[in-house]
């Protein structure tokens, strides 16, 4: 009996000394800064609002909003060389969001313009997908389905590759304010963020709400002002909290796993991070709009996975 007690006490002491600090350290920041994206060749960026990495083309597309253009970088390897800048002969004014399908078609939303503008650069044509209301951020899944956040009517519209509206997602709660960002997982589930309530909503392919979590507050895991959402290849949910200068990482059920980032201007710190995107190689792209910086992070375990 006494031996058992002694064993329990010993295990307790060992856990206290080595176990819990290890877990806490792991939960704290298992990410590293890979690089800061060099945009000097393009003359720098000005208040970029979003970015998208086209997995098919392996191109990183930045909505360089203040400079009224889109910037294309080669995403093969880790160097991110500038490929081209695109402004559709001056037609693009203040792009908010841009995504690209597997055929290279570009879908762009702009400040003050209704509809989604579609550029098929292969045949040099332009088309407009009429969206009643105010479309802002876009997302695209692996099947080329297009997801559009439409702010005026507080909904997410889903279009198939033939640009037919196949479903719409909304929240019927009166207290709901609006969607501010959207991300799609491999199974077609829609993850949407509501900034003012600090909530993450998860919808299935049919648009049924299957989970929601989060709130604004001051406890660990609470949001202060979440602005953007992304999913890593493991299904973890990354939420950028602009006012906490942090990224909070949740598992697919919404349990906080870890968080990283702190206020600062130095490399690796975050200054009002506004937008996040994660590619299939688990590279985490974070836009700090206020200081025109794009930093690329990666989880420490990424190397072990051979990504």
């Amino acid at each position: 009996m006494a031996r058992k007690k002694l064993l329990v006490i010993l295990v307790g002491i060992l856990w206290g000394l080595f176990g819990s600090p290890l877990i806490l350290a792991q939960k704290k920041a298992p990410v590293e800064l890979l690089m800061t994206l060099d945009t000097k060749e393009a003359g720098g960026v000005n208040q970029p609002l979003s970015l998208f990495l086209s997995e098919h083309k392996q191109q990183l597309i930045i909505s360089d909003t203040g400079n009224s253009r889109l910037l294309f970088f080669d995403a093969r390897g880790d160097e991110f060389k500038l490929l081209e800048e695109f402004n559709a002969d001056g037609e693009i004014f203040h792009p908010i969001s841009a995504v690209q399908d597997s055929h290279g078609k570009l879908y762009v939303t702009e400040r003050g313009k209704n509809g989604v503008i579609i550029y098929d650069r292969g045949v040099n044509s332009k088309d407009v997908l009429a969206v009643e209301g105010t479309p802002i951020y876009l997302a695209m899944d692996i099947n080329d389905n297009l997801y559009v956040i439409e702010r005026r009517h507080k909904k997410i519209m889903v279009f198939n590759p033939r640009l037919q509206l196949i479903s719409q997602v909304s929240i019927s709660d009166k207290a709901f304010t609006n969607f501010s960002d959207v991300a799609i997982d491999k199974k077609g589930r829609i993850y949407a963020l509501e900034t003012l309530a600090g909530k993450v909503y998860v919808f299935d392919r049919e648009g049924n709400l299957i989970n929601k979590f989060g709130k604004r507050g001051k406890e660990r895991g609470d949001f202060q002002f979440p602005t953007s959402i992304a999913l890593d290849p493991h299904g973890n949910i990354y939420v950028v909290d602009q006012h906490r200068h942090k990224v909070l990482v949740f598992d697919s059920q919404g349990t906080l796993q870890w968080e990283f980032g702190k206020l600062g201007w130095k490399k690796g710190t975050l200054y009002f991070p506004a937008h996040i995107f994660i590619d299939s190689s688990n590279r985490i792209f974070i836009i700090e709009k206020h200081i025109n910086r794009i930093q690329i992070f990666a989880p420490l375990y990424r190397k072990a996975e051979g990504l």
Partner: protein
Amino acid sequence: MLKGTAYFAMNSSRFRIQDSGFRKIVIFLILFVSVLGGKTYAQTKLKVGMPDLCYGCHEGLKKEFSKDHVHVPVKEGQCTTCHNPHTSNHAALIKDEINILCLGCHKEVKEDFKNKSVHSAFKRGECTDCHNPHSSNYRYILTKSENFLCLDCHKAVKGHLERPYLIPPFREKRCLSCHHAHASNVRNQLVKSPSQLCQSCHGIRCQVNGISLSFTLKGSDCTNCHSGHSSDSKGIFNAYGHSAFLQRKCGECHNPILADREVTTKLAGKELCFGCHKEEKKLLSNINTHMINEENACTLCHNPHSSNRKGLISKADEELCLSCHQDTDRKQIFMEKKLKRIRCVPVKERKCLKCHRPPHYDHPLYLKPQESIGCDTCHKAQHTITHPLGEKAIDPRTGHPLNCSTCHSMHAAKDKFMLYYNRDRALCIQCHKGY
């Protein structure tokens, strides 16, 4: 027994009192001696019982504490409920910070913080700003009559008493008839929704061209058109009005008004406003346009009919901005506690619109375009002797021109003078790395 206790201390597993009756007697004796001993010790130490012991020195207090309304611990003579008779880290030898001390007993008041609209004095001030902790001649042991207490801070509202047309509760300075002193779930800490509050005394008499608006205005906010306090015009209309409203040209925005029908607008949301305010329509193309994508982008801040605030701003800055940006307010409260003293008036008084003008300034934080973001309005001297600012001084960390907010954090400063870092060194070496 002593031998047994010592043995117990050395090795508890070997200490056994086999006789359970004897064990009970030992436990009883230990408890009895400790309780009696403790009480005797306390009683013998005090020369005179409380509160007479305290009043022995604090002679004037006994009379002062016998006003009409007396705080319960004072009435019961329990001075040590709040005060430590020996030492304390707080003035007047109180046991803890005043608000923590009060809310320790008044737990129901603590619940008020959860409400949507919380009185700033309640949120950031001290309970003793309004309440006397001992006794008072006014109900709720207020420091002054409620008629004067509110208007002491709300000086602008006090000025409204000079206007010719006043609503009766305001004329009689019965603030608590309409407002809750701490918090409520209705804006401005109103005890009910504005429509319920107004209609509890009088019905809707509003008309347009002889057509009663009672149907459409039943649940509407009366303060959209009328002041809740006073006015220079009959009908107690708000001080500032939309030109179409003042000229009674309802048809400019509304479809024809019919009896017993909802009043509707010609166009939905901001599109209606942009019909006349064409310059503002350009805001849609700005990069930083606060909530401009929302259907009600204009009416989020502006009242389309009238307001008591210039620019038809619908609410006080605090209510307008901080209802969404509560995290900024929380950060600021933390900063205020840490820095103890904030002198910057717009920051202290939550005059958000002094520096930010969403969405009219195309800046990520909607700051005014001047290099000093308006700080030089007050800080004239500092503006002439400061570190170089503007286009010629670029922040190497961000590539942006320096302005006051480069070094000063208005809402989350960590060091004195509302600086991000200590000005002795840490602040400077952010950029001047060679030093």
